[in-house]
C-alpha cells in the first residue's frame, strides 16, 4: 500500500464518522428521514461534506456521538445503505444492512438503521423488533442507547402510540421532529 492512499482512506473514514453524527441527529429530529452519505461522494473532494454537516448542526440540537462500526467494511455498507435510504430505496438498504450485520452482528447502529428501513417499507412490526434488538445490543453505550430508543419512538409514532413515543423522547431529551 502506498502512503498516499491510507491517508485519504483515513480521511474518508473520518468523514463517515462525522456524517454519522449528523445522521443520528437528523434521524432523531426529523422522524428519521436523513441519510447523508452517498457512495458517489467517495471520489468527490472532501470539502463538500462538512458544509452539509455544519448546516445540519446549526439547525438541530446536538446529537449523541456514536462511534462508527469497528470495521471499515461495515462502515462502507452502512454508508451505502444510508444513501439508499435517502433515495427512498429501503429494500436496497435492508440488503446492504443485513450484509453489514453479518460482518458485525452486535453493532447496534446497524440494527437501528435496519429498523428505519423496515419502517420506511411500512413493516412496523419488524421495525419495532429491530429497534428492540438495537436497544439490547447498545448495552451500556449511552449514545447508542439514546439513538436506539429514539428509533423505537419513531416506530411507536408510526404505530399511533404517540404518548409512548413522547415518553421516550422526553426521557432521552429530544423533541419530536
Amino acid at each position, binding site marked *: *500500500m*502506498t502512503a498516499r*492512499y*491510507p491517508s485519504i*482512506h483515513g480521511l474518508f473514514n473520518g468523514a463517515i464518522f462525522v456524517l454519522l453524527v449528523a445522521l443520528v441527529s437528523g434521524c432523531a429530529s426529523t422522524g428519521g428521514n436523513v441519510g447523508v452519505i452517498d457512495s458517489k461522494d467517495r471520489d468527490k473532494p472532501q470539502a463538500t461534506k462538512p458544509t452539509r454537516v455544519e448546516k445540519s448542526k446549526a439547525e438541530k440540537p446536538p446529537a449523541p456521538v456514536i462511534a462508527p462500526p*469497528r*470495521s*471499515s*467494511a461495515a*462502515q*462502507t*455498507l452502512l454508508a451505502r445503505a444510508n444513501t439508499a435510504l435517502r433515495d427512498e430505496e429501503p*429494500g*436496497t438498504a*435492508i*440488503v*446492504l444492512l*443485513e*450484509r453489514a*450485520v*453479518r*460482518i458485525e*452482528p*452486535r453493532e447496534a447502529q446497524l440494527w437501528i438503521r*435496519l429498523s428505519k428501513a*423496515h419502517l420506511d417499507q411500512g*413493516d412496523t412490526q*419488524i421495525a419495532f*423488533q*429491530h429497534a*428492540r*434488538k438495537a*436497544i*439490547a*445490543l447498545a*448495552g*451500556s453505550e449511552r449514545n447508542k442507547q439514546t439513538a436506539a430508543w429514539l428509533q423505537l419512538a419513531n416506530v411507536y409514532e408510526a404505530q399511533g402510540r404517540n404518548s409512548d413515543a413522547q415518553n421516550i423522547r422526553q426521557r432521552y431529551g429530544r423533541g419530536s421532529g
Partner: protein
Amino acid sequence: MAKKPATRRRTTKAKTTSSGQGWLATLRRWLFRFLLKVTLWAGLLAVLVGSGYLYYLDRSISKTFEGRRWSVPAQVYAQPMELYAGKRLTNAQLQVELRRLGYRQTADLSKPGSFQPIAGGVSIHLRAFSFMDSPRPSMRITVMFVGNRLQRLKYADRPLDLVRLEPAVIGSFFPSHGEDRVILTPDKVPALLADGLKAVEDRAFDEHQGFSVTGILRAALVNFRSGEARQGGSTLTQQLVKSYFLTNERTIERKLRELAMSVILELRFTKEDILTAYINEIFLGQNGARAIHGFGLGAQYYFNKPLNELPAHQIAALISIIRGPSYYNPFRHPQRTLRRRNRILDTFLADGLISTAIHQDAIGQPLGVVDSPNSGGAYYPAFMDLVRIELSERYSADDLRTQGLRIFTTLNPAVQANAQQAVSTTLGVIEKERRQEPGSLQASAVITDTQTGEVLALVGGRQGRVDGFNRGINAQRPVGSVIKPLIVLSALESDLEWSSAVNDAAITLTPPNGESWSPRNYDGKTRGELPIIKALALSLNLAMVDLGNQVGLSTVQNRFRDLVGYTPKNPYPSFFLGAEPMSPLQLTELYGNFASGGFRTPPKSVIAVLDEQGAPLSHHPFDVTQTIDVETATSLNAGLQLVMQRGTGRSSPFAKQGVAGKTGTSNDNRDSWFAGFDNSRLSVVWVGRDDNKPTGLTGTSGALRLWNAITRFDGPDPLLPPISENLQSIEYDTGLQATAKCADVVVLPIRQPDTLQVKPGCGLKPSLGERLRSIFRP
C-alpha cells in the same frame, strides 16, 4: 313377358360377341375410374391424416423446444464469502475456499477464475457475478494476511474496503424426472465448443435441413474404414430431437418421426437457436437421481468451473462424452475417454480450430475431471430440505423447477464441510473406542448465527451427500437435561436467584390423571440443599424437579411456548427432565433465545429469491422477537458458561474460553445432546442410533465431543463478559455471599444482592436487608 329378357340377353350377347374388346375397355375404364376415385379419396385422406400427423409432430416438437428453452430449475446459492480487513481468516483457508469454487492456481491471472499465492497473501482474478444487490464485474484483487487475520485488500493498487467471492452453487430444484441444467445464452457459448461440435458431430450442420444424406454416407465410410463407430450419421438436430424424447426403441417408425421433427425444427427455428438448444439439452451423465443435461452444468459437474473457463482439452473431453455418457464416463473409464478426447483434439487441429501449439499442450494434459463436493452444485441435501420447507410457503414446486429462480441462502460451505467431517470422523472414533458396530451411530448438527438465526450448516446424518432421512429436521428425540435452562430461566424470572436453594432429594410425583413418577439422579445419589447454579452445572435431576415444582409446570411450559412457538407435547412433570421429543432444529430455536441475548430468532435458511432477470421476488428479513429481558438473558448465559467451566461441560477443551452450553442424555442413554454457543455461533448436536437402541453415551461423552470437534476448526469466538451492576461472588456449594479468599466462589448477576446471606468468616458485612431480617428474626 318371358321372352323379353331372353331377347335382350341375346342382343347383349350378340353385342358382346360382336365387340368383345369394347366390353373389356368398359371394364378397364370403370376400373380406372374406380381406382382414380379410390386413389383420390385415399390421397385426400392421406393428406388429411398426414397433415394432421405433421401438425401433431409440429406442435409436439415446437412445444417441447420452446418449453425446454425456458424451463430452468431454480439455482440455489450459498452465502458468499465476504473479504475485508480484520476478518478472521487465514491465507490457507481463503485458498481452500477458492479451490472449492473451482478457481485454478496459475501464474497467469489474465482470466477470471484464477489465483496465485504471493508473499503474505494471494492475488485473485475474481469472476463476475450478479449478486442479489448488484452485479459485480470480474476484477483482479490482492489479499494480504497477518497471522490469522485478513490485513488488507487492494484493487488496482488502491485499498478496497470489502469484496465478495461469488457464492457456491449448492443445488438446484430440478424436476422429479431428474433433469438438471444450467441454461446458457448463445453469447455465453465458447466458439470452440460450437465449432468443435459441428466438426465432430455434424459437419454439414450449417447447410442441411435437419438431415444429411452425405453425412450418413460419410459416417458410414469413416466407420467402415476405421472398423469402429467413430461417427454417427445423425445430425445435431436429430440428436436434439432424440434427446427430447429419450427412448431406446430402435424402429423405422421412430427414425422417420425423428427425421420429420428435425425437418420441422429446421423450418421453424434458426440454426443458432437449434445449436444453443442442443448445447443446453444434451445428456452428459448421471449423478445419482440427477441427470446432468447441457454443457453449462456438464462443465460444473466434471470440472467444477463455468463453461467459459474451460481450456481446449476440457471442451474436447465434454464433447467426447456425448457419444455415450456411460461408455465414456470420465470417472469410470478415464483411459477410454482420454483416447476419444485426443482424437477429437486431432479433429480440432485438422479443422484449424486450434493451433498446433495448443494442440500439443492439450494432448499432454490429463483429463482433469474433479470429483469435488461442489462439482455442479454438489448438493447439501440436508440443508436443501430446509430451503425447500421455507420456500414451500411462498413458491409452488413448479415455480422452483421451471422459472429459473435464483435463491440466495445462508449456508456457509466451509462451516458445513467442517461440521460434516467432524461428524464422520468423531462417530468413527467413538465406535472404535467403545467397540461398537461401525456405522451404528448416527448424528446431526445445526449451526446458526447467534444474532440473526441464519443457518450456517445443517448436518442430517453421517453421509452428507446422501439424500436420506434428515435427522436435523425430522428426528424427534427426547432432549433430556438440555431442557433444564428453561426451568432456570423461569426461576430467574420469578423472584429466585442463582444463589437460591433447591433440594436435591428423592421425590415421587403423582400428577392428576398421570402415573406416579419417581425420578433419580444420573449417579443415583442425592445431595440435599444446594444453590440453583450448582444444580444446573451438575445437571441434578432431583434438584431440577424441585426447582420446577417451585416455579410451576405451567409457568415453565408457557415459557417454552413463548420461546419456540408451540405447546410442549408432554404435559407432565417429566417435562422438567426433558421427556419431550424435539428435533435438533427445534432445539436450535429454543437455544436461539438464549444465544441471541433474549430474542426468539428462528433458524432461517433463505435470504432472498430473485427471478431469472434478477428482480427480487421476496426478501426474507432477519426474524427477531424479544422474548427474554436482556438482563435475565445475560444472567442465564453467565450460568451456562459456568456449566461449561465447572459442570457437565468441563471436559471440553474450550470450557474456559468463553463458551456456554448444556448437555443432555435421554433415558437409558438413547440420545446424547449438546447445545452450546459462543459470541457468534450456536450449535446443537445430537448423537444416537436410528433404531433408538441405547448407545451408552451421555451428552458429555457423545454430543459434546462432537461439538468439540466442530468448534476446533475455527476456535471459539468468546462470549463477552456479562456487564451487570449486580455481579456478586457467591459460594458454589452454598450460594452464600463470599470472597475468593475464603471460599470456592462463582461470580454471577444477583438481582437483589440485599437478599444474599453472607458466609461467616469472610470478613463481609451483612447487607442492610440481612441485618433487618436478623432484627426481626425470632
